[in-house]
């Protein structure tokens, strides 16, 4: 079976019903996609299949033979971060980081498909992804920033929205 991952062709030896997630993590040692539930419920395993976000845990590899798979490794590297990676860093959109890869790929696809900074549209597009740390606020901020085409200062992080600091108060 042939599969292209991040532009690199692979000949896959796993059994045909092996999930794409297991093929990536166990056969190809690409570990950014996470086994958050293996039930399709959390989105931590989401990758792009021909540019569309899909749950790799629900996808038998035989069903995507010949497809182009994109994982976070294919978005950018530490020295050359994709806009969505810059935005997630700048906005602290990752806390523990476990849901982040899936979330970013869904966000990347959303923006690539012309998604706007509209909060409800972002919620609709990324709504199936569970994050247990952030409360989603900074994730939505980050996605909106990419959709707007913001540029990001790598030395500083973004102030939260709707935040006020009163300092000391008796």
């Amino acid at each position, binding site marked *: 079976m042939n599969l292209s991952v991040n532009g690199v062709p692979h000949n896959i030896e796993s059994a045909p019903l092996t999930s794409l997630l297991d093929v990536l993590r166990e056969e190809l040692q690409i570990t950014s996609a996470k086994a958050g539930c293996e039930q399709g419920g959390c989105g931590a395993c989401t990758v792009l299949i021909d540019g569309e976000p899909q749950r790799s845990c629900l996808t038998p590899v035989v069903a995507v033979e010949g497809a182009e798979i994109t*994982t976070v490794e294919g978005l950018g590297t530490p020295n050359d971060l994709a806009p969505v990676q810059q935005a997630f860093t700048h906005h602290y959109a990752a806390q523990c*980081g*476990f849901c982040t890869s899936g979330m970013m790929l869904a966000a990347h696809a959303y923006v690539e498909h012309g998604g706007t900074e509209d909060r409800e549209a972002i919620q609709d597009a990324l709504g199936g992804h569970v994050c*247990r740390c952030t409360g989603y606020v900074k994730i939505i901020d980050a996605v909106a920033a990419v959709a707007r085409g913001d540029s990001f200062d790598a030395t*500083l992080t973004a102030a939260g929205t709707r935040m006020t600091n009163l300092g000391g108060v008796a």
Partner: protein
Amino acid sequence: MKAVGARVPRYDGVAHATGRTEFVDDVRVPGTLWVKALRSPSHHADITRLDVSAAVAMKGVRAVITADDVPLLEYGHLSALGIPADEPLLAKGEVRYKGQPIAVVAADDEEIAQAAVDAIGLDLTEKPALFDIRKAFDADAPRIHQWGNWYTHFEGGMDRRQIRKGNIEDAFDKADVIVQGVYRPAAIEHVPLETQVSLVVPEANGRLTIYSCTQALYFSMGVVAAHLQLPLNKLKFVGGTVGGGFGGKVDTATETICALLAQKSGRPVKWRWTREEEFLCSSTRAPWHMEIADAVTKDGWILGRKMLTLHDSGAYSRFSPYGLTKHSFHHTGAYSIPNLEFDGYVVYTNRVPTTAMRGFGVTSVSFATETHLSRIAHELGVDPFELRLKNANRIGDTSPNQIAYTDPSTVPTILAIANALGHKLTPDYRAMTRDPRSGDLLPEHLVAQIGSTEGH
């Protein structure tokens, strides 16, 4: 540039954003075995037969362990604080909750491991189960532990956590109104996106390297060392990067069992719980049952509080006595209530043991007492902000356990929200501060409770 107070980039931000943060499940060691557990299908039963011989004999099975393989079977999460152990690492003789691990298998792959678990012979004799903590004290209640249905080892040999302060009867006599209510927050799953996982690698020098998702490396190392009866230099915990915890990964859920399987098989062993195991078998936030009766005056002073708390510990104690004690220390919330009578029980049920979770012990009491105060405000026809502001703890007021508050910010945080909402307050309330009580804000009932802020 100042570092403290600055919005510096996260230390691990780029690693997160490039998918390069290495979690336990991302560590690859050749030859690693899969683990599956035989878990109790019953809520409460005697184990009348446990036969692992067929599993042991299966091709590809490298180790099977039961309670008999654990050097120290019972080690309490709070043994270090003198709280007795009551939970076996693997069930022995009796299962007390559905999902309790009984035997564990390490095998070459997942299918073999599951087949081996299915091949284990298990006979159970069902026993009546207890689920309602309000019925735990009934004479005919099913009995969970030989000593009974609640924890009996609080200081002084007491079977409950008790707080007494001031003169409760006097407060209830003087009250204009007594408002009584019941509050019951639910069990909650922690739901870290990374399920419980560990990988144990036996090293050439006899040490065990334990890759762990624990929230507490040294704490978990102590637990493993105790069960295995090993000195700390035989163990190396590797971790510190956790895919969400929220309290559930203070439990040492998988590490000890993997260590035993690695010892027995001589192979690296990884156990990653399925999401279903995480939902159904991992510990939860506790359900609580709280009853409050507050003695109040018509103008909204809280003179006294009687409170009864039952904490649903599940089948074993884990951190519950600690959580209940913390709960009792905070059962007046952000207010100064001078006369108190609190009784709290850690009650066992035949459900998955409960454990620490974000806000441990206090999330429950915050819900109960704050909802109760809103009720009182409505009952008295007093503004809910003003009721809180006048009773808010001030510098020098004392806690339930008689420690003076040195820097309470109840008043400023309430006023900040009142301002944000545009809530109307009288000028007296608007000008309030957290400074020590005086004048109208130091009525007779609050004089005796004032303490010293020195030396804390």
